[in-house]
């Protein structure tokens, strides 16, 4: 028991980070499932984090309310900016959302209430393991249900072929906006949870680099199922810690592993189709059938 207490004391923040990153990867998975390559999720995370932190620090709201506000604030922003930007597609959308991320960062940098470049410190530690677990499980369940729903099928149709989807009577704009906004909610939640587990937030945590980090996690894990993004987030968060014994070489080894995955598993680590094939091949070999 003492061994577990020691382990938990040492690694609780790391485990929290895994959960929060998984939530972020899922948020991007949702927008990607509708064929939207968005780089705005880091900014949504930041909006959620700042909203939540400010409500806790200044208005002393109860934590559940803070989490709700942290999820709704980026959703409102997503609704406003989504309408014009989601007309774009592919790399143009990526650029527009990237610009939005930069605008958000510079705004936060220059506002008085957000503490400018110095950020906000002294945020109380309110996030516990079950908050993260509960939210992650709820998000996972909701997304799994969503995939099989009318809306989820519509997302998939839009991703595969927008014109065909429109011909079938799917409201393309409405569904895109829904995917974008729901993604923002998840990212905002992740931001609120993160702000209340690390004591401190600053604008540089929600910039371009972080947007790319989220994208890497999602793509590395694979977007063919919900397990992929969670797996990608877990690996990318834990790998640097597991490689700590390599000291100065760990970032290099970390990078090499990523290159290896991208070269040899371009569809991500968790590709349901490939896994099914593998399992099938293994079964036929064992049962001796041709």
């Amino acid at each position: 028991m003492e061994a577990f207490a020691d382990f938990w004391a040492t690694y609780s923040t790391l485990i929290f980070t895994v959960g929060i990153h998984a939530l972020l990867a899922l948020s991007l998975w949702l927008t990607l499932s509708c064929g939207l390559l968005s780089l705005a999720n880091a900014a949504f995370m930041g909006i959620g984090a700042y909203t939540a932190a400010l409500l806790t620090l200044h208005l002393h709201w109860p934590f559940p309310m803070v989490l709700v506000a942290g999820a709704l604030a980026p959703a409102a922003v997503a609704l406003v900016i989504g309408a014009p930007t989601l007309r774009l597609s592919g790399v143009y959308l990526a650029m527009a959302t990237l610009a939005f991320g930069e605008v958000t960062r510079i705004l936060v940098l220059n506002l008085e209430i957000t503490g400018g470049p110095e950020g906000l410190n002294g945020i109380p530690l309110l996030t516990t393991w079950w908050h993260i677990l509960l939210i992650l499980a709820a998000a996972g369940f909701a997304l799994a249900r969503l995939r099989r729903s009318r809306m989820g099928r519509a997302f998939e149709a839009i991703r595969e072929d927008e014109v065909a989807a429109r011909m079938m009577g799917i409201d393309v704009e409405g569904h895109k906006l829904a995917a974008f906004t729901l993604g923002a909610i998840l990212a905002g939640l992740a931001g609120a949870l993160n702000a209340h587990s690390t004591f401190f937030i600053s604008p540089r945590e929600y910039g371009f680099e972080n947007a790319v980090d989220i994208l890497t996690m999602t793509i590395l894990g694979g977007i063919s199922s919900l397990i992929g993004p969670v797996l990608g987030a877990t690996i990318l968060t834990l790998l640097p810690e597991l490689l700590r014994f390599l000291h100065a070489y760990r970032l290099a080894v970390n990078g090499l592993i990523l290159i290896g995955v991208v070269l040899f598993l371009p569809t991500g680590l968790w590709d349901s189709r490939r896994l099914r094939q593998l399992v099938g091949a293994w079964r036929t070999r064992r049962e001796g059938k041709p």
Partner: protein
Amino acid sequence: MNRATKHLLFAAASLLAVSAVAGDLKIGIAEALTGGAAQYGVPIRNGFQLAADEINAKGGINGNKLVLVVEDEQGKKEEAINVFKKLIFQDKVLMIFGPTLSNSMFAAGPVANAAKVVAFGTSNTANGISEMGPYIFRNSVMESDVLPVTVSTAVKHYKIKKVAVIYGNDDAFTKSGYDVFKKVLEDQKIPVTTTETYVKGDVDFKAQLTKIKATNPDAVICSGLAEEAATLMVQARGLGLKAPFIGGNGFNSPKLFEVSKTAGEGTFVGSPWANTNPTPANQHFVAAYKQKYGAEPNQFAAQAYDAMTIAAAALKSIKVTGNVANDREALHGALPKVSLSGATGPFKFRQSVGKDGKPAGYDADQKPFIYVIRDGKFVLFTGK
């Protein structure tokens, strides 16, 4: 993880267990050794290592050897927390030096404070660091201690009546420097003709400088990092702006002269450490550092070197029992009493007051050195 790596890990772990015999004093070092902040983190680590090696070579502390557990916190807040927790709960160190950046300290400091372990910053200059709790220490001199002296010295020397201000407004370090300058100028009742801003990475400051020139100030106060400040000085001279500059801690880098050459003549800068300070402690440090690392030390290495000496003095005054919790507490009690004269000059701690009005952590109580730039070099200002 395959079996081979597992074995390797076990071997490494048992090796560590063997090397850390009773009588070793484990000190955690959490500094940014990779990433952007490594330019500060690496000299800091070197400073610690140099001091610890010297102490061990002289027989250690009351017969016990100092063992440094060095971890890279990459200048990221999550990493800083992870490293702090690893050092506190797994390596069971007596105290932790670091992290490198103020931001990381804001994230990791509360962890150490809650675990009742001393976190000793040697490079955190932001306001509010030591206010986080009684276990937070630093020997880095805050801008609010340096800048008033810099400004008043320059004002006296140049007979300054009014100044213009320019600063980088997207960086925590330069922005907090500006806040201090603003307060100092208000306190010393020096009117500001105009306040201009730029962002990190800017290369053209002519618009701001033209405005500044139009207000005809006696001096230009600049809170910026060396890279931007150097370009700024060159362009100011190009526009015919002759007023001298007054800089913050960000100016304290040889990089300033790589670009500015002699454009910065007459600039006043305050620093917690003087390379040429003739005290034996400093001369010894400069020579030993050069010999060990083959490079010139900087203020960060000097402050780290002094911090280790301060911790060693505190460790010497306590009886180490081997019970980690008791030893940590004893060390925490002994640290504030240390006062000594190191590479950065005479040093003692000053207790700060927390947000709740209770006594909190400890700041450095030290006098800064004032430099003036002459012939493209920092020269200690002696009143002439």
